């Protein structure tokens, strides 16, 4: 079997396992997220992802934008609602996204700088 197919099969197996786990344990998370957690745990135990898995995950990752297109086209069903409430929607989407990017990047950069400084000077 090709590497992509083998890796893709494994991703589906973990997704199924995630769905089963969520249903059986009544967890409040989506199945694929549980599948991701299970796969992450398995990969840490194994220390290295098999090549097939890298190929499949990388292949899906490369075309990630494409996968969002069908959901995005759904905007045509909500034209009335979106035009009625265009101001709160647009403001929330644009302002919140800009602020979240700025806050995340500044926090990350600041804490990384602080950590580096603490390591180079040492805590004597």
């Amino acid at each position, binding site marked *: 079997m090709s590497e992509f197919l083998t890796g893709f099969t494994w991703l589906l197996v973990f997704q199924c396992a995630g769905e089963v786990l969520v249903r059986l344990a009544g967890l409040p998370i989506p199945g694929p997220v549980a599948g991701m957690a299970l796969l992450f745990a398995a990969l840490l135990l194994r220390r290295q992802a098999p090549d097939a898995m890298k190929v499949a995950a990388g292949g899906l990752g490369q075309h990630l934008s494409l996968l*969002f297109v069908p959901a995005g086209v759904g905007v045509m069903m909500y034209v009335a609602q979106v035009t009625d409430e265009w101001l709160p929607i647009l403001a929330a989407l644009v302002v919140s996204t800009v602020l979240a990017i700025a806050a995340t990047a500044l926090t990350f950069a600041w804490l990384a700088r602080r*950590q580096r400084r603490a390591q180079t000077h040492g805590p004597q």
Partner: protein
Amino acid sequence: MSAQPFFELWVYLAATPLAGLTLTLVAYAVAWRCYVRSGMHPAANPVLISVGLIVAVLWASGTRYQTYFDGAQFVHFLLGPAVVGLAVPLAREWGSVRKLALPIAGALVVGSVVALVTTVGLARALGATPATLLSLAPKSVTAPIAMGIAQRIGGVPALAAVFAVTTGVIGAALGKYVLDACRVRDWRARGFALGMAAHGIGTARAFQVNVEAGTYASLAFALHGFIAAVLFPLGYALLVRSA
């Protein structure tokens, strides 16, 4: 020659999943070409162009979204395995992630709180209806997870997906300018911020600019999706119970 055979052919094509699937891939191929031709300019986002092209075609041909989605669902379905696959970069980078645990945890908490509070606060202050508000709340989380969250807290899953995709496009388009204005030059911080606020679409953009930025974007994208999926329904349940 009459137009009848063409009409029958169109009726046949429109009724099979083939048309929706083909339309999605062709539109994306065209959008990708535009994006590359523009020198990968952030405003020429391939998702934005694809959605615009497809909506125009569906509108002009009078095709319903449901008919289109019968075909496009095969592409949409792949979001599930793509989310599972996020474990691969996460596990690969685990060594360096552990060393940067403090910046990652801090940025994760600050970013998710800012994204949620400003979204709900602004939408509420400007008079959004409860259905819109609850569908907007998980907008910075990737579409499949946002749909699951919206369903659990009483929003509209399909609308939450639309908001999540729009957020991704906005983040991917504006990210560069916001990060330049903040004078953040560290590729890890830049990537992490894009994945955090603009999930998969921001991650795709980050990978196109710099590999290290892309890796940290996928890390943020996975972590944010995971903690949001766990904390949103719990927080909402607490809120409802205390109200």
